[in-house]
């Protein structure tokens, strides 16, 4: 029997017709009906859906610096259990990923862990300070081959620095992933600004603080003809601006998080900081606009913004708590739950938004590939009927700050193949 060679029997690629898939030495070698198992290990997958593994453009792995919250290894475990084959690791580590040395270290540890491909994101500015450009070219030319640059956690608010960054990355087909948040309009901001923030006395984070930056940035990207990616779009107005920019031919892409698709600001009334996230949970109308935007392709990708925090960072009063929530292990279930009622949504669109589109944006050429002969065997098998209750302590992440604890999410990732290696079986990581 050949190692890492399998015949997946009876699953439905993209939720469509039943097909068998032959995987040999990390590649899909045959797709068809009632294939001969020959000497391969047979994976019985009737009733399950087969998709290309997911790609996350926005993950905080916390290493180096905050290994108490997450490590590249623990984050990789969480990612593969969530069905991902590649994650883009955000630059806001300690030290900041603003030099070739740091991004190469993250990339190397990711390789050594070997459960997913870890693509480091480089900082746009030195130390995320928003003042001087980091060595973008050196990071791009490093063995990490950085293509995505972001000061995420901070907005590149200086329009001149943003313009220069957009121009500079054109030399190596890079993209600037903007955390769109006007810092002056969000001083001390704690939650979505609206009727509820007024009642709760929590300082508001107005939608306009996101939308005004996106509007400015799409105009800048258009002016210098470069690639802009908008991180965690959270408002109906942002969707409208991105839609307009795309119609105008601007090279802009956008992502939405699973939590902004599903959760709304009313959860903040509990004052439980597990619901504290940046950008904040918005209104019901915003979630509906985000779902529609994701379905029609205005929003290109789902990205988790997986943001682990140690227990004490959330076990406190709201103002003192850290922003952020876990996302990798719950992403699929949350997206399926959120999008269930949205028209023009099926497994094909889900696969595009969670796999091929983010891979294209990040230039991860070996990921997000179609289920076709000769393609890399990064596959997930999903049981569409099995549900799962989220238990914070049972997650692979080192942190437990999931807003979904106690919720039952639809569908379940049962098996994951990474480069043809069957590393998740029955929802559990091998070894």
């Amino acid at each position: 029997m050949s190692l890492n060679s399998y015949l997946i029997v009876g699953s439905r690629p993209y939720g469509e017709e039943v097909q068998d898939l032959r995987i040999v030495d990390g590649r899909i070698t045959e797709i068809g009906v009632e294939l001969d198992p020959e000497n391969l290990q047979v994976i019985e997958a009737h009733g399950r859906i087969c998709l290309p593994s997911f790609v996350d453009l926005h993950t905080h792995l916390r290493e180096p610096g905050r290994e108490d919250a997450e490590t590249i290894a623990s984050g990789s475990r969480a990612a593969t259990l969530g069905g991902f084959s590649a994650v883009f690791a955000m630059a806001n580590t300690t030290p900041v990923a603003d030099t070739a040395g740091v991004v190469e270290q993250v990339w190397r540890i990711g390789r050594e862990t070997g459960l997913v491909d870890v693509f480091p994101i480089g900082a746009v500015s030195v130390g995320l300070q928003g003042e001087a450009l980091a060595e973008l070219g050196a990071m791009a030319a490093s063995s990490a081959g950085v293509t995505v640059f972001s000061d995420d956690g901070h907005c590149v608010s200086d329009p001149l620095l943003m313009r220069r960054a957009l121009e500079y990355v054109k030399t190596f087909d890079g993209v600037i992933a903007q955390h769109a948040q006007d810092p002056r309009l969000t001083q001390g901001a704690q939650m979505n600004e609206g009727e509820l923030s007024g009642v709760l006395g929590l300082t508001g984070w107005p939608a306009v603080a996101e939308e005004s930056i996106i509007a400015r940035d799409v105009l800048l990207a258009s002016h210098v003809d470069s690639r802009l990616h908008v991180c965690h779009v959270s408002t109906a107005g942002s969707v409208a601006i991105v839609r307009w920019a795309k119609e105008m031919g601007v090279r802009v892409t956008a992502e939405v998080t699973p939590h902004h698709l599903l959760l709304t600001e009313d959860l903040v009334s509990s004052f439980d900081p597990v619901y504290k996230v940046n950008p904040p949970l918005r209104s019901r109308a915003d979630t509906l606009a985000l779902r529609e935007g994701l379905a029609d392709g205005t929003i290109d990708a789902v990205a988790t913004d997986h943001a682990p925090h140690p227990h004490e960072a959330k076990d406190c009063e709201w103002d003192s708590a850290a922003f952020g929530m876990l996302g990798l292990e719950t992403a699929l279930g949350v997206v399926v739950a959120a999008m269930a009622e949205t028209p023009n949504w099926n497994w094909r669109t889900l696969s595009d938004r969670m796999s091929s589109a983010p891979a294209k944006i990040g230039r991860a050429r070996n990921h997000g590939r179609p289920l076709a002969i000769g393609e890399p065997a990064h596959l997930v098998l999903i049981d569409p009927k099995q549900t799962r209750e989220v238990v914070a302590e049972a997650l692979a992440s080192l942190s437990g700050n999931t807003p979904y604890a106690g919720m039952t999410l639809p569908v379940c990732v049962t098996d994951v193949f990474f480069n043809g290696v069957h590393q998740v079986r029955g929802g559990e990581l091998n070894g």
Partner: protein
Amino acid sequence: MKHLISVQDLSRTDTLQILDTALELDRVTDGGTKLLPTLRGRTVVNLFYEDSTRTRLSFERAAKRLSADVVTFSAKGSSVSKGESLKDTALTLKAMGADMIVVRHSSPGAAHRLAHAGWLESSVLNAGDGKHEHPTQALGDAFTIRARLRPEASDFNGLTIGIVGDVLHSRVARSNIFLLASLGAKVVVIGPPTLLPVGVENWPCEVSYSLDARLPQLDAIMMLRVQQERMNGTFFPSELEYSRAFGLNRARAAVLPEHAIVMHPGPMNRGVEISAEVADSARSVITEQVANGLKVRMASMYLLIGGDVSVT
């Protein structure tokens, strides 16, 4: 009722019970001159993360009049100033056996967290949490309005109450708007748009940018304190301009109906939101608010941890 966190948790019946109990406690203590043994053996901790001598003293006196043991835990000079978390302070208080925590904190929801995060089992009484709420202030104000304008009544139907000034940053305003509206009063919020919260138009109140236009309709007017730090040209051009538009001076007070009362939660900026003449005039009930605040604090403590002990 175990905790008192927000007036929005109070039904009209709850509110009237607190107001009636405050009245009754005042009677049986001969206006506060006699101690009641009701909370003997109970420990009330005043946990104050913000300086507020007035509120702290009021809660201390309220607890002592009910014979409770009172411990004051002030942020200054304690481990809190060295960075101890709210949770660790809560665990310490739990270990000391506090029956009630009266908490003042700068973070909205801090009292709610103390009550519901699973850190301790004590009753929690919110003595002001950031810009969120200050329920006993509003209860005291309701007591004052009732005593002056609707003695013994079970609602405030037909009353119009103006709340003037910096509603955005005021927990007193929030608690008063929701409490007075729940009692049936028509509440009018008056101030410059920069000092009104987003969404206030959907609260149970009317909104006006003109004090002068509303004065003749008000049965009670509540002037909010304006913090000096809001006056640096960010929320309002200047103190003088604020005072000209929203200050209650003698000329404006003369436009109020004859029976109207003037309120202020204190401490006042005399000459800014209220002139000294008006603050000291016969229609000012500002010192009554202080006395009545103490009465409703007694009533709240009694109802939260007095169990089934009868008032007498």
